[in-house]
């Protein structure tokens, strides 16, 4: 499939809708805090804002940034540029869903598939258990329990689809990671 420049520009205009939305209406948009209250042993859910910031910190080792995306022509000449504010844009998208979980999963899928993270391919991981343990530590701040490690390694061995990216996606999609 090929993508035309006009269609990209249309997409960018959709992005621009984000800014326009706030100006077009005079509503008071209160920040929605998901999981602000908790009771007993139940975990406190991370807000969308907290989730985005932790995802960038834990996967990309940086905070969300604002930058210009540059469009170049066939010979490298600049055709145009537009600004992206990673945090604001992703929060805008997350604000558009009731339960943010499915969209959080897809954002994680996008980042874990990005060149910026550059995860190894499955066959490049010599020691799956070590890889899994390492990412448990980095994302959950703990060692995997024995049954968790066994289950993850078994899945890794049994299914082609289970590899570095799925391990990370599962970890950041877990209730444990998504809780404060």
């Amino acid at each position, binding site marked *: 499939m090929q993508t035309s420049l006009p269609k990209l520009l249309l997409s960018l205009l959709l992005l621009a809708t984000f800014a326009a939305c706030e100006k077009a209406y005079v509503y008071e948009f209160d920040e929605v805090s998901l999981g602000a209250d908790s009771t007993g042993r139940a975990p406190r859910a991370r807000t969308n804002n907290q989730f985005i910031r932790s995802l960038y910190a834990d996967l990309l080792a940086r905070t969300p940034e604002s930058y210009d995306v540059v469009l170049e022509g066939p010979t490298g000449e600049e055709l145009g540029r537009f600004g992206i504010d990673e945090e604001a844009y992703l929060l805008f998208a997350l604000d558009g869903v009731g339960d943010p979980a499915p969209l959080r999963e897809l954002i994680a899928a996008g980042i874990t598939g990005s060149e910026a993270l550059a995860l190894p391919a499955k066959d490049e991981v010599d020691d799956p258990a070590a890889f899994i343990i390492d990412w448990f530590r980095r994302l959950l701040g703990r060692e995997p329990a024995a049954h968790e490690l066994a289950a993850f390694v078994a899945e890794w061995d049994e299914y082609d689809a289970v590899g570095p990216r799925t391990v990370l996606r599962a970890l950041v*999609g877990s209730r444990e990671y998504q809780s404060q």
Partner: protein
Amino acid sequence: MRIPRRTFLKAAGVAGVALAARRTFGPLIRTSHAGSTGLAAKRVVIVAIGGGLRLSESLGMADGATMPNLFGSVPLVSGFGPGAVGPVAFAPEFVAGTPAIIRPATATTPLHTQGTLVTNLRYAEGPPGHLQGHCTLVSGAYNQMENRGDARVPTPTLFEIVRRERGTAATDAWYLSAVGGFYRALQTSADPDFGPRFAGTFLSPAGPMSAIVPLVSSGVRRYRFDGMSLGLPTIQDTPAEAAAVRRLGSILDGNTPEYADGEVRSSPDDRAAIREHLGGLYADPTYESFYPDSVGIGLTADDGGIDSTNDALTVYHAEQILTRFKPSVMVVTLLDIDACHLDYNGYLRGQLLADACVRRLWETIQSTDGLRNETALLVVPEHGRHLYHNGRYPDSLGRSGIDHGEGDDGDRNVWLLALGPDFRAGQVIAPTAIAQSGRTSGRYESVDVAMTAASILGHGDVLAAKLTALGKRPGLTMQELFR
């Protein structure tokens, strides 16, 4: 055939509920049939034209035929002249200074001839404000709901009633809104018998149904256009990988207690279904899935393509969800016409586009197996606007913005268009002898929309009983709509 009384009493099983329903519907129940609802409609879609739409512009066509696909070009309320009106009277500076409107040629026969149009619906109580009007349409109760995203509808929504009574998934009840923010509050009530576990699935397409997620999550900052393609980023989420993530996630979640914060959280199956739907959009390298030019509704883009409007984008994705999930209930909030606070011409434009969108939605329904002839579509403004202009940003034709909220007749006089297999065709009505204890309007009211929807779905008794128990005046099922 009139809507059968069993529609309302069905599934009650409790004498109190049946009594409450009988008291509520009273003399309007004219025919009794045994068995199911006896209706062909299996689902209800409510398109709530939000932001405030006055009778004078829509049915009165005071500035031309702003909704020609729905209503044609001859005013449908008195006081606006007997003959056909011309096209919409945009101010010349608006035409010159804004992108051209793109919409299909107007239908030769207006849609209202396929159903019943109530020209004197009354938003009788409550503030004519954002959220309160929509809250009335999703809950069937006038309210003073706060404009907060974490607010809760005071009484059960149609979404919750349908899901609880039918035991269905979150994908059986959808709430799509042209804007997010506090509109997300309408997905559920705080009623302990219902609440977030039965919430509708909320989506405001401008954010999630856009290039934001694949573009931003890719982190790519430079694209090379080779004359043919750009290689735009996508998100790949194969079924095998999604299943693997779910299996691994369930291992992890087994160690962590459920949240107990009262927020809306979908089940793992619902989450997977919604993720799959969104993921399908993000996997499309053409980005056409967000809003294909073939929709043919929007504004002319600088490059000659089509820019969607928020309303058009919302209706397009409502269609995609309807055809994919075939839910029992969907409510769609449009809001572009609310530009009217500051931009009267934008208000007129919003009506033209909403009109084109509703027609397209109906044609999609009627051309889709599993939706055709089994879907009721109710189109209704959430409320109107003031009878007077506010003096802000007047155009060269002397028309300034119009606000809403004070509750004059401009705010409260609206209409309802009912399309579907059970509604009478070609009927334009304005009943004035609708009787109910506490109803002073003598007319059908905005609260009747949700009650009629609930009754079509076989749950009118549940809604009536609940509202009665909470001290609210339930709406009536609008008998005159039905064959």
